[in-house]
Each structure stands twice: as C-alpha cells, then as structure tokens.
C-alpha cells in the first residue's frame, strides 16, 4: 500500500490568486492512500522542500505529488529534494496547476478549483504506480566540435582550447572570421573590427588544441551526448594547403574575373583567390564553378599552375572526408543579411546608389573597394546627401516580424563614420520607426550621433523614385513636425536586418535541433537555458539562435563553451532513465518504431529464439529522448516509455473520468 504526500503550491498569488489551494489540499486528503496533504506559499523554496523532506521521514511517505508550476520548471528541483530525503526521485509526480489551471482560467476561479482537484486526483492515481528508476552513467569524449568560424565560433573555440579541451573548428568558407571580418568599425566604441578580430583568428590557427577545417562542412552526425560521431567533408581547394605560401602570384595571372562576395560584389576577384586580406589560413583557393580548367574539365589555361613557384596548384584534388568523435557540439553558423531586392519599393537592385548597410561597411573599410573613401557606386563621386532607411526586412509582417537588434546601432555608427570621413557640406538623414539603443554605452552613442548634426526623421518612406536625370528622391512624412519632407539623396543606405542562415535547414536536420517560428535555432528555455538546444550536448552560440550584435555574440559563445566544459569536464555524464524500453516477447520486428524515431535511437537486431532468427527492436538508451513517438506507433504495444506506459496513462485517464462519471457526465 502506497503512502502518498500531496503538496499544493500557492506560487505566491500565481496559483492561489485563482485556485482555492486550501480546498484542493483538503480534497486531496480524501483521496485513497493519501497520508498527508498540505499547501504552502512557495514549494520550490528551501522551507517548501524541507516540508516534503521532513514528511517523508515522519509520515513514512513513499510517493510524492506536488501540485505546482510546469514540470519543465521545477521537476528536477523536487526530484533532487526527494532524493536527498532518501526516496527514489522518480517516485515524484508533478501536477501543473499554474500553466494548466490558474493562468488560463483567471476569470473562472470556481471552475479552476474544480479542475485543480481533478488534476490532483489524476496525479495521485498515477503516483501509486510509478516505478523507481536509476540514472545511468556513460563516459564522454573530452572533445568539442564547433561549427562555424565567425566571431562566435572563434571565441568558443579559444575558450575551450584554453581550458584544455580538444576542439575541431569547421568553417564553410576558405577562411575563418565570418561576418565580423567584413565590418569597418564596431559600435559603440568605434574599435576597428579587423584590429580586434584578426589577432583572435591568428590565435585559433596557432593553438595546439584547435584543429581547423576551412572550406569544409559537416555531412553526418551520429551518436549521442558525450559520444557524437561526426563526418566532415573537406571540399577541394585545388591548392595544396601545406605548400601554398599565400604569395598571390597565381591570382595575378588568372584570367577569370568574378564578383567578390567578401566585398559584397562591389569589386571583382579572380577564379583563384584569397578569401580576404586578413584570411586565416592565408592560402589560395580555386573556385571550381568559375575556373576554366575545372569548369570545362579540359586541359586548358593552367596559368596559375605555371606561375606557382611552390608547386601548390593541384587540379586533381578530391573531396576528403574526416571522421571525428566528440562529446559536445557548439553550433555557431551565424546569420545572413536580408535580401533587399525583396522590398521592391525601395529600388535596391534597380538603382545603383541604393546600397545595403553591409555594402556601406565595405565601402567605408580601408581594405574595401574604395580604400575607405565614401563614394557613390554609380559615379564614384563623394555624396552630398546620404539617407539611411531603417527596418528593411525586419519588423515587417511581409518578411520578418522580429527586430533585427543591430540595424539602429549599425546606422548610428555609419552616420558617424560618414560625418567623420566627409565632414563639410554633407546632409545625413536617418528615417526610422523607433530608434533602439538599448545596450551598454549605446544610448550615449546615439547622443554622439545627434551631436554630429545628423537629421533624424521619425518616419520611413513608402518608395524611392529615380528622376529622369538619374538622381534619386523620396518623400517621407515626419511624425514630429507633421511635414512631408522631400529628400534628394545621392546615396541611400538600407538598414537591412539579419535573417536565418540558409544552412540552418541542413544543420537542424543533422543535429535534430528544432527551430523557432522565426527560423532561427530554438534554445532549450528562453530564459533559463538560452545557450543549449533541446538536444543534449548541442549548444548554441551567436546569431544562429537569433539576431545579435558582437558583444552579445561573444558573451553567448563564451557561455556555450562554459556549458560544454561543464558537461564534459568529469569525463562521464548521467543520463535520464525516462526512455523507451522494448518488451522483447511482444516485439514483432515490424520496424515501424525504427522508421518513426526522430532521434535514430532504435536499432534492429537479429536474435536466435528456439533456433529461429528473429528481428527485434533495441533502444540505444543514450540517444533516446523519451518523446514517445515509437510507443504510440507500436502495433503490439511492445515498446513503452518508462513511467509513461499504457498502465500509468490509462490509470490517470480513469481517475480523471471517475468523478465526471459519478456526477452523471456533467
């Protein structure tokens, strides 16, 4: 006979403000096998936990039901408390009175109390048939894979490497550095982006604990937390990495000119190229889609091969697969910039002097196409009027509903740069909806921009026109003056926002990591677990989780590294026992569970039973996340989730219906 203790939490007024907690506790006392029932202001507080622990001893309780907030919030807290009192932690049942009762039923307290009673009744019924379970320990690889070599990936890799962990850093492009390498200055301090980034890039290359794979992608991920097996595909550079010295002789002779993506297609590069002036590793790469010899697959051109003194050019290079074993994975693939051609009314793509903020960044950069001088792309002249237009592609239900978090600050920085570089005779307008300067030192930066005689117009234009003489103009209605302002800018800079990386689709599938409705990767909890994905051992850093500026990205990257260190430092981890288990006698080997499992946690094995070979499902415990998909699909009920089998669920449903039936199904 079970002895159950029921505890009803007030959660301040979150629950008690709606539900009559005293009545619920009194009701619980009338339920079968309930030895004691109490209510308390904050069950999760230390005195609340003590209350349970003392009762376990004095009342000799062997099952605990806690009616409180969502189990996602405090199930772990109460399990720990129960374990400290000497009871198996899995004999605890959480009844959700906050998210399921008091919050959705604020306006109907009486009905809410009835519902709370019913849920407690169901919880008590279920608690009686819970089974004690034990956590298992598995050993882990003390190595980490970092996907993406932008500032997030660089920071996470360096932190991990400095803590003594072996790191594999995989970057898709031929050099690390990412988006930050393209920037001129950084807000709010106007540090030169390259000056603070390049030393870190060099540190990565020099660090003995970091193995760098550039021009590479991950192609498969198997295994589970602590023991991931990852395949990395190294695309051919057609240049021997060990021989190339980065002398650029090959680039000088290459006849094929293509748009330079690093310069936002404002300039041209050659088919053989070095990714950027500060590239790490600084070695050449040949683009197979442009190189005459590789594209035509004929014995033509070959000028680079002839020019290379180090004999590094190798047209026969093949893709190479590297297999590694790691304990944890940090995803740091970053974001992309909104494609402004989609907002057709602003004329990007049609009018040459309408550019994006990334293009402005390259124009303003000393290593960019104009050597840092601000010129119009159309005629190369210095602009006399520059207009910045905010929220392009962001805060817009047609494209992306979220705020891009960086657009306002980028524009403030760029207005300051423009004012500093071409001081006299230049008008600078910023057309904005709301100006958001929320970080440390950011509002001061906004003040600095205002002091530099920048005209802020509270309103955005509907469209940009081109006059017959090729000049631009637009009307914008200023909210504060009630005036329609006509602006004739020489240069329009669009404040394009950040959008999810297109690789996220592939990466989320490979890692089984889910994405939020905005397309970015989803964190395990928006407030309490922002650095982890819901998949154990997969961590998130930087703009792949949501648009972010550099300070936030670096902070998150260091945090993710610390999380990975925390997971792997002891060399072994405990895994939850709430997993699927197979009843071998019932399993018919139909393979439905294998096909349905989203985590590839089911292996089919042949066994000999009475001389006959039989196919049977087996659960890889460490991979299984306990989602229950297999259990509901199994035609013979052979596979079930611990604590959530048919027995427990049906008992709970019966208890839920019991009173309703007694009342005549009211």
């Amino acid at each position, binding site marked *: 006979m079970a002895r159950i203790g029921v505890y009803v939490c007030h959660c301040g007024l979150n629950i008690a403000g709606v539900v009559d907690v005293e009545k619920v506790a009194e009701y619980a006392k009338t339920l079968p096998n309930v030895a004691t029932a109490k209510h308390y202001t904050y069950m999760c507080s230390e005195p609340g936990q003590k209350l349970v622990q003392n009762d376990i001893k004095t009342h000799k309780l062997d099952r605990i039901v806690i009616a409180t907030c969502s189990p996602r919030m405090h199930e772990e807290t109460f399990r720990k408390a129960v374990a400290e009192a000497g009871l198996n932690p899995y004999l605890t049942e959480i009844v959700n009175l906050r998210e399921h009762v008091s919050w959705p039923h604020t306006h109907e307290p009486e009905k809410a109390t009835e519902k709370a009673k019913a849920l407690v009744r169901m919880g008590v019924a279920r608690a009686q048939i819970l089974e004690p379970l034990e956590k298992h320990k598995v050993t882990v690889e003390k190595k980490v894979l970092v996907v993406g070599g932008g500032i997030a990936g660089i920071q996470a890799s360096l932190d991990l490497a400095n803590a003594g962990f072996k790191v594999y850093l995989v970057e898709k492009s031929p050099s690390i550095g990412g988006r930050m390498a393209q920037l001129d200055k950084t807000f709010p301090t106007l540090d030169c982006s390259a000056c603070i980034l390049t030393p870190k890039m060099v540190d990565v290359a020099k660090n003995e604990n970091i193995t760098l794979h550039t021009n590479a992608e991950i192609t498969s991920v198997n295994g589970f937390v602590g023991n991931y097996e990852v395949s990395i595909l190294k695309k051919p550079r057609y240049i021997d990495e060990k021989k190339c010295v980065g002398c650029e002789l090959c680039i000088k002779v290459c006849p094929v000119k293509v748009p330079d993506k690093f310069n936002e297609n404002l300039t041209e590069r050659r088919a053989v190229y070095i990714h950027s002036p500060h590239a790490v590793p600084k070695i050449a790469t040949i683009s197979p889609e442009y190189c005459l010899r590789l594209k035509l697959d004929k014995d033509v051109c070959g000028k680079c091969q002839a020019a290379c003194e180090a004999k590094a050019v190798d047209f026969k290079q093949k893709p190479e697969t590297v297999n590694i074993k790691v304990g944890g994975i940090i995803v740091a693939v970053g974001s992309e910039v909104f494609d402004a051609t989609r907002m057709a*009314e602003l004329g990007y793509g049609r009018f040459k002097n309408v550019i994006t903020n990334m293009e402005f960044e390259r124009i303003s950069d000393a290593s960019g196409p104009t050597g840092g001088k601000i010129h119009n792309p159309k005629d190369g002249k210095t602009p006399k009027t520059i207009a910045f237009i905010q*929220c392009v592609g962001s*805060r*817009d*239900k*047609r494209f992306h509903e979220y705020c891009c978090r960086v657009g306002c600050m980028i524009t403030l920085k760029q207005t300051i740069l423009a004012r500093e570089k071409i001081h006299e005779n230049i008008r600078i307008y910023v057309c904005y*909806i*709301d100006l958001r300067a929320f970080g440390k030192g950011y509002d001061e930066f906004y003040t600095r921009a205002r002091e530099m005689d920048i005209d802020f117009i*509270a*309103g*955005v*234009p*509907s*469209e940009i026109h081109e006059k017959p003489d090729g000049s631009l103009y*637009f*009307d*914008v*209605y*200023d*909210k504060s003056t*009630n005036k*329609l302002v006509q602006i004739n800018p020489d240069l329009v800079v669009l404040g394009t926002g950040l959008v999810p990386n297109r690789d996220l689709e592939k990466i989320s599938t490979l890692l089984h990591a889910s994405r939020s409705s905005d397309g970015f990767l989803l964190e395990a909890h928006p407030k309490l677990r922002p650095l982890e994905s819901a998949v154990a051992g997969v961590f998130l850093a930087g703009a792949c989780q949501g648009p972010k500026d550099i300070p936030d990205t670096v902070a998150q990257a260091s945090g993710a590294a610390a999380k990975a260190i925390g997971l792997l430092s002891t060399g072994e981890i405990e895994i939850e026992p709430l997993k699927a288990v197979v009843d071998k006698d019932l399993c018919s080997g139909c393979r439905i569970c294998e096909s349905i499992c989203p985590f590839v946690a089911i292996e089919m094995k042949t066994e000999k039973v009475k001389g006959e070979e039989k196919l049977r499902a087996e659960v890889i415990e460490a991979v299984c996340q306990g989602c229950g998909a297999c259990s509901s699909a199994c035609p013979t009920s052979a596979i079930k989730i611990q604590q959530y089998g048919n027995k427990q669920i049906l008992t709970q449903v019966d208890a839920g219906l019991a009173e309703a039936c007694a009342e005549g199904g009211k």
Partner: protein
Amino acid sequence: MSIVDLMSMTKPNLEARKKILAKLKGKELANCFQCMKCTSGCTALKLLELKPNEIVKLVNLGFVDELPNSDIIWTCVTCLKCVERCPQKASPYHIIMALRNLAVEKEAKVPEGFLKAVSQILETGLAEPPQKIVTRKMETVDRECLNLPKIRFPKESFQAALMKAMEEK
C-alpha cells in the same frame, strides 16, 4: 476645417470605436506602430491632406465621432499602396472604408461624386459608362474603333437583385 481642429474638442467615444473594430474583423488595426510609411507614400496627401496614419491613430484612441462627418475620409483614392506596403498589415485603407460605411449609416453628408457613382451603378450596373476618349494625337476613339469587345449591360432584373442584396446586408 482640418481633422486636428475638430478633434481638439472631442472626447474618445469607445462605443463608436467598438463599432469600427467590428467592421474591421480580421484587420489588424491595433498593430499600427506609426512608421509613417502609409502617409509618406499616400497619393491623396499632397493635394488633399489625407494622413492615413492619423486616421488609424484617431480610431485606435476612440476619436471616431467627427470622422464620418469629415470630408477627409472621402479623399482616399483607393490606390491601395498602404495595403501593399504596411509592414504591420494594419492597412489604413480598410479603416477608411469602414468609416465611409459608418458615414452612410449615419446619413452624413456624402460627396456628390460618390452619390453619382452609386446611382450610375444602380442604373447601368457599371461604375463608369463607356466613354469616348481623345488620344495624344487628338483622335477621338471609342471601344468599337479600337476593336474592343462590346461591354454587356446587366439584365433588367439586376437592379431589383442589387437592392435586395443591399437591404439584406
């Protein structure tokens, strides 16, 4: 008299606001964050001083009483630019149409042109009758000489059916 003058005297009428909201079922009036995009590009702004953003905010705050009697709601030329480009899909156009309907319900003064269009539709079933036009080369042309198909007029029973449909609504 501009709307601003009219408004400075009034108090919000939350009942009337509710009425408009009911007419705007599914239109996201409350989402307007006053980005000015509609007014910046409004075809009727430069000549007729229509400020769609102001209309949205007035309705949102409940200053609805004077709007149906005001000339301003009839200045919208229904170019639908604001519908196309509103980043919040708050669409001032739909609000202006709701106000026009309210004006007719209240039997407020409706500009002559609109009344003419209505009687035209009732009589012929067309908002505009087929007309001859003069080209840049000063030639007068009609549909026939441009080899365009003849416009079919609705049957006689159309008028009764239209009246019935309007009454039912």
